[in-house]
């Protein structure tokens, strides 16, 4: 703690830097004390574990709602596992500095590098906003709508014992059957939950102070029943408010922080220009890429197969057509160009279901009630139905393709009757 260099440098911004860092550390979940930040600038080893834990917390998906009580749950992994995950996550997001990958796995070194990594994450995207939104106290009822939520709440997956050795195909059939059964169970449970929610919402109609909501949610009803839980909820709300206020302070002061980070970066030795090679191991992503490549290739072949003969036939017919033909031709080309551009935008600019992203509070309101902000279930049902039809068509197409392929392969053994099961 000896050096007071900051004072000499920053002039009137002296007080602002500690304030900014304090605000940042209060906004972050599991934020370390400002002292840690200061030590990290000078690469002190004692600051490293806290920063590893901070990065782990920031980079790993949140556990499911049930674990909201204790942020530092006893089941959080050991420091080494955290180090490992932080390194992988940063690498996957494209962290440019090699020094991070070379830090020891026991988490004892590298506080300055970790500080740079944190700053990098903060600079790249709306990290704080996302963290605050993630940990926001949600009083309302929700049904899982978007896939991201379902995945995010799954938490870090434990490593599984893989079955080694050859497997009978009947095992696969059994697993498929089990999956179908589980889905059916899931749907039934979900229907029950919806019925219960409907009842609770009806019974508590008129109890909420917020007229636009009109009724209580499960969490709020529990508040009535359980004052102890109410106290806990109050505490959570209090701490969330404190974090929000800290975040506001941070956003007012963050320029000072970035100037300071420049000095931190300056204090680092330059990396050697020739990189050491990490062993290349095929990633999970690579196989997905291969799948897509194969699909696109197949599609390309099919398109060529239908387009070429038509072009040939067309050319043969369109021989001696007059000058008005070229104008028509150009018009058609433009029209087709526009249509295809629209098509391209459909996948490049994200899904039509963008409005289903993010948590939404369920509110029961009579159909006749006048509009207000909020997504109507009926609209969402319409969107989902069309998506369902689309997906069913895709699945049907895939299954037909499989059937055609199998028929072709079955030709290798003639003299058999293949009797199909009764139609779907």
């Amino acid at each position, binding site marked *: 703690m000896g050096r007071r260099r900051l004072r000499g440098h920053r002039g009137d911004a002296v007080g602002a830097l500690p304030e900014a860092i304090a605000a940042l550390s209060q906004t972050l979940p599991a934020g370390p004390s400002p002292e840690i930040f200061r030590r990290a600038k000078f690469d002190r080893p004692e600051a490293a574990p806290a920063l590893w834990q901070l990065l782990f917390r920031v980079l790993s998906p949140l556990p499911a709602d049930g674990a909201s009580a204790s942020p530092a749950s006893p089941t959080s992994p050991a420091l080494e596992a955290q180090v490992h995950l932080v390194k992988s996550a940063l690498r996957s*997001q494209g962290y440019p500095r090699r020094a991070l990958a070379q830090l020891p796995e026991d988490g004892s070194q590298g506080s300055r590098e970790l500080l740079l990594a944190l700053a990098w994450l903060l600079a790249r995207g709306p990290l704080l906003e996302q963290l605050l939104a993630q940990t926001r106290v949600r009083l309302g009822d929700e049904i899982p709508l978007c896939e991201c939520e379902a995945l995010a709440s799954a938490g870090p997956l434990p490593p599984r014992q893989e079955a080694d050795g050859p497997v009978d195909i009947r095992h696969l059939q059994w697993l498929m059957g089990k999956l179908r059964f589980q889905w059916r169970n899931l749907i039934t449970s979900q229907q029950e939950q919806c019925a*219960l929610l409907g009842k609770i919402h009806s019974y508590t109609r008129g109890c909420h102070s917020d007229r636009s909501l009109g009724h209580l949610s499960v969490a709020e009803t529990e508040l009535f029943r359980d004052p102890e839980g109410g106290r806990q909820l109050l505490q959570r709300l209090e701490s969330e408010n404190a974090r929000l206020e800290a975040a506001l302070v941070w956003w007012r002061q963050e320029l000072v922080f970035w100037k300071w980070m420049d000095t931190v970066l300056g204090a680092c030795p330059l990396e050697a220009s020739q990189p050491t090679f990490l062993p290349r191991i095929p990633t999970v992503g690579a196989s997905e890429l291969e799948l897509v490549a194969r699909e696109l290739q197949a599609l390309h072949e099919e398109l060529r197969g239908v387009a070429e003969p038509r072009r040939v036939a*067309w050319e043969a017919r369109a021989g001696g057509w007059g000058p008005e033909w070229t104008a028509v031709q150009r018009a058609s080309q433009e029209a087709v160009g526009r249509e295809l551009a629209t098509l391209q935008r459909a996948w490049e600019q994200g899904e039509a279901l963008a409005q289903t992203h993010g948590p939404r509070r369920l509110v029961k309101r009579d159909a006749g009630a006048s509009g207000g902000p909020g997504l109507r279930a009926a609209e969402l049902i319409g969107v989902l139905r069309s998506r369902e039809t689309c997906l069913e068509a895709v699945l049907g197409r895939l299954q037909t393709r499989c*059937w055609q392929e199998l028929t072709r392969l079955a030709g290798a053994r003639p003299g058999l009757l293949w009797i199909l099961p009764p139609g779907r």
Partner: protein
Amino acid sequence: MLPADCSRRLVAELRDALDACAERQRQLERSLRVSRRLLRTWEPETPAAEPAPGPETNEEVPPPACTPSRQELKELELLTQALEKAVRVRKSMSKAGERHKALSLKSGDAATSASTASAPSRASSQAGSQASETKPPRGAHQTTVPARGLPEGRLPSVGDRTRMARGARATKPGPGLRDQQITASAAPQAPEAFTLKEKGLWAQFSSTQTSDSRDAATTAKTQFLQKMKMTSGWPGSGLSAAEVEAEVGLLRKACSLLRWRMEEELSADPADWMQEYHCLLTLEGLQAITGRCLHRVQELRAAVAGQQLKPWPEGRCPRASMPCEGRTDSSWSPQLLLYSSTKELQTLAALRLRVAMLEQQIHLEKVLMAELFPLVSTRDPQGPSWLVLCRAVHSLLCEGGERFLTILRDEPAD
């Protein structure tokens, strides 16, 4: 029997799917337990005690709809007497109620300065608690009981404020119940006051997003990122694994959209030569786009190969640890999903699950196709296990594992 590596991959895929399903089930079970527990206090009592649905929709409705029937009042009085005994046991809960009220009075003041909605909101909570008295009478009693243990000094102060705010709403059934209503509303006021304050803070956020200081900060951040990149010794193609994954997702979507468009064109019957030409141009355009996508795939392949990306731990990666990025940009007020009946909600939830299930099925179908077809073509058709394999493959791939075909030897009749 399937070869070892193929088995491992397929079993892993199916088990992933099962795990995802099981996780959803676990979360549902958790919510179900809570909901069932809450409803137990309402439902076991006679459902006949529920009054007509009139009061639900409009609190301004004149007394007859709001006032519980004479019989219900009697029942309530009886229950109140019985519960008074329980108050002695619940002395400790009264302390909690006291603290709640203290906090609510304090934060109520804070909330008033933060937002003007607090006064009418407190009024409506009075009406609300009254309605809650009539609808689930027993349930509300549980919370009002602790309040009876509170010092009398508190009740009038809250009562005064609320009585002033309520004004003309003189539809209270009786003095005994009135006290209970007022104090019943006190308990949830504290968190509501906090949520109001919180809403104010979130609203301040969206205003800070657009100020000038943000621009300076953004510039500083961009400069920092560039410096970081320059100080690293890594050549890097600039693509991270997360970005590759995102692009692969886009390409997958592109492929299915292109295919759908192609099939639309092929199934349409061109009525005249102009439509034929249109169709031809579309197909050629689709072919060109597919070609460009394939080119992009090659580029991605090269990037992945050249980058030497480190693998995820244990081959399983958390997908995009920051999902739903678009949401944080929009307003911070909580988004609502409005439904009008239980049936509607059930339909919505069932559809959502069905869509998720179909997506999973399609993914599994593609994986199974990629793994099983090579097996069928490479295995000896005359061998003993080939037919078994074909039958199983047909069932898995063409019938979703639900039905099986039968294979008969076509013997000529003698």
